[in-house]
């Protein structure tokens, strides 16, 4: 492989990492409160607001059921509004974030719902406010599951980021399609896939290790 190609691969890797990191970061910032709300706002729950819960739930489902490639195209005006352009790495971050936020919210909702209701009752018996219950009980107790959920979300984002190449986003997927497929350079294709495999493996093992470290439910001998 020529140095130029290697430089292209490095650049594409950096672009992918940037897109995924920013989308995952913003997705978590938005998805965490959304997930907590979804997990605590049904009838009889801490922040009971069944109507808002139903509306947000439907919105989340709608976003999640739209195929990513269609979502990318459908929100181009919104992307242009935020990023100033609809082409390139910065622009690709917008649909990635829009797709990841409801996904992360659902994962966090699931993690929070797994927390033993007895702990919520114990906290209530101490006079905790709903906000204190979320901050001191629900989120810390769900943290290992949240970390595993975020790991899954990041791995999925790596896959999604390959698709934004189709609309002019950069990154490894774009490189694979343009050089590996359209220019018949199987070595570039193989390199792209290899880099993605390494990235996914790395993310997954960091996530697993962090979750295990945070999970105090198991005895550490």
């Amino acid at each position: 492989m020529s140095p130029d190609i290697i430089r292209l691969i490095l650049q594409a890797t950096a672009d992918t990492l940037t897109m995924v990191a920013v989308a995952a970061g913003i997705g978590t910032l938005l998805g965490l409160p959304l997930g907590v709300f979804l997990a605590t706002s049904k009838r009889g729950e801490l922040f009971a607001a069944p109507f808002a819960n139903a509306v947000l739930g439907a919105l989340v489902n709608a976003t999640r059921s739209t195929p990513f490639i269609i979502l990318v195209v459908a929100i181009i005006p919104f992307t242009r509004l935020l990023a100033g352009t609809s082409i390139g790495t910065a622009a690709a971050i917008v649909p990635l974030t829009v797709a990841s936020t409801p996904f992360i919210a659902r994962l966090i909702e699931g993690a929070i719902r797994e927390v033993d209701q007895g702990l919520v009752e114990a906290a209530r018996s101490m006079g905790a406010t709903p906000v204190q219950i979320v901050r001191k009980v629900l989120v810390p107790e769900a943290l290992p599951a949240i970390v595993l959920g975020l790991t899954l979300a990041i791995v999925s984002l790596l896959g999604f980021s390959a698709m934004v190449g189709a609309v002019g986003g950069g990154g490894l997927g774009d490189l694979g399609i343009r050089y590996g497929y359209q220019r018949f350079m199987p070595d570039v294709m193989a390199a792209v896939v290899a880099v993605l495999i390494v990235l996914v493996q790395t993310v997954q093992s960091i996530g697993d290790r962090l979750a295990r470290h945070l999970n105090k439910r198991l005895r550490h001998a």
Partner: protein
Amino acid sequence: MNAPLKPDAFRVGIDIPPLPEPIIRFERVGKVFAGRRGQSEVEALAGIDLDVPKGAIVGVIGRSGAGKSTLIRLVNGLERASSGRILIEGEDVTGLSEAGWRARRRTTGMIFQHFNLLSSRTVFDNVALPLEIAGTPRAEITTQVERLLDLVGLADKRERYPAELSGGQKQRVGIARALATEPKVLLCDEATSALDPETTQSILALLKQVNRELGVTILLITHEIPVIKEICDRVAVIEGGRIVEEGDTFSVLTQPKHPTTARFVEAVTGVDLPAHLAGRLRTEPRPGDAAVLRITFTGENATAPVISRLSSIIGVDVNILAGRIDAIAGKPFGSLLVSVPAREPELGAVLGALKSLELKVEVIGHVS
């Protein structure tokens, strides 16, 4: 002019000291749960009248579904009464807002059957949680938590996580946590039901210590009569959402009036005939039969040497078939099954002698 007679002067018999003022009082309390989708509503509690005297240990016993969990949750507002009134330290808490309840809950500790400790927090941080919630300064939290861990005997476990502790140790953490804000009342929700008998004993001893040394009033619910027998000053028996019997533990357990109470009590006070005799028990005596008597010992008579007196003074042979002597609420209580000759005058003399000792005797049958 004569001084007016006090009504007390007319009282006959043993003078029962008046109960201390109740710290918790239920007045005709009812609780109805709304039915789920088309189902009719469920009446969990009805007409509950109950006083919890200050400084006492009061037990509520009932089977699962009897309403005892709902009852205990009314005291800290985790459930709200549908009717009636609940007074805590004289204050009517029935209409309290959620914010009002939050403030109240800081003066009421609660422990749970499954401990409900946070797995993500160390022992120290679990005990610190109610203080963090109350906004106590960090330095104060440290002294208080250390004091409590000493009290429950877990000072060496402060940096451990709940998963590294035994059930008994977890409940000790639960007790320390419940006492962190120095509550006046401790609610125990089946606190020993997940523990083995030996650990149960040690937790009950700790609860007793907390009650005596810190003056914390304890209201506990359980389905285990040994818990009541061991530490409760008073007991209420709940069945189908109603209190069917209530009183001081010794009287209720030794003279149960309601069938539900009797069933619970059987396990601790009942004595059964050995199987080979039970099958041969007859109501009507035949010549040469022996009468089977159940003698119930209570209070100071429980330790009197009754059997040896019967044989030495009246000169009849007393055959002991089964028996048990136990302590209920700290007082001895025993039950003994014996057989004596069924012929007169021996039988009459034995019954007379036992009755003169103020023991409860009953002829339950005859065997050859």
